């Protein structure tokens, strides 16, 4: 079982979450080229090692959150933007 640290609910089983992957800035839909959209929709860095990921706590608080996960060890930590707001 992998635990995801939710800033609202505390550590929870990863099965309660939806994995949304690497956060990427959404291009401006009026100005982006088809290539930029394709990159936004389909291309990922897929690093072997620590990276930032977006998860959605669908069975819990229904909030999106960021975590840092090492893809080679599955070590998960709260993202720095959430550190300190765990109650």
């Amino acid at each position: 079982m992998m635990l995801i640290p939710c800033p609202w609910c505390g550590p929870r089983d990863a099965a309660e979450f939806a994995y949304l992957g690497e956060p990427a800035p959404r291009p401006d839909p009026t100005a982006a080229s088809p290539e930029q959209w394709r990159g936004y929709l389909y291309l990922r860095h897929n690093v072997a090692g620590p990276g930032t990921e977006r998860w959605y706590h669908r069975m819990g608080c229904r909030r999106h959150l960021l975590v840092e996960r090492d893809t080679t060890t599955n070590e998960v930590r709260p993202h720095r933007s959430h550190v300190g707001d765990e109650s």
Partner: protein
Amino acid sequence: MDDTTPVARSAISPAPPEIVVACWAVSGRRSTGALTLTDASPLAKVAVRADPDGELAQALGVRFGRTSRRTDALDSVGTDVLVVGSGPGEWLALGAPGRQLALTEQLRGLLERRGRVSGAASAELVTVVDLTHGRALMRLTGPAAAELLGRECAVDLTDAACPDGSALRTAVAGLATDVIRDDWDGTSSYLLHCERSSGQYLFDSLLDAGTELGVDVDGFTTPSARDERRTMYDF
């Protein structure tokens, strides 16, 4: 129409004998077992969404993860209302059967009444929705309730992590479920709230998981249906 005509049914089929309580067709079975499961769907259920740091949140006075039982002006006839901090900026108010419309109006009026006192109109966006017939609600009671619940979900239910008055949403038997600890007379008791269409499944799966713990179905009752003593359903 008298009180014995059923006009509502919960998603969970009542264990025989079927009786009518507050216009709901419910199970009239009475269990004296140590671990009981009751379909509490007739209780009024009203969802509230608002800014977690806003005025309504202040008026409700319940933060995410906690519950509060109040007998004040939330319900004009003075019955208890259990206000549950079910999510960030989300509350669930549980009241006596049949009180859902009154409770909805009372909750909608909370901001207005506050505004009249402070003299300032609120610009806060708030939604108050009656979910009574759209959800299933059950109550699991007994010293072994946490042990049974622990077989169906992966959160820490020890007294230290989940004391009386706690509320959390998690997966129970694979369903998104509000778990609300609401002890009665010193006995552990949990309210479980899920989508109506999942109610029968959750009910059955708890009975299945609790077979060797001796879990037994106990019917729904209100104080007037039993005696003058307050019961745990006397919201």
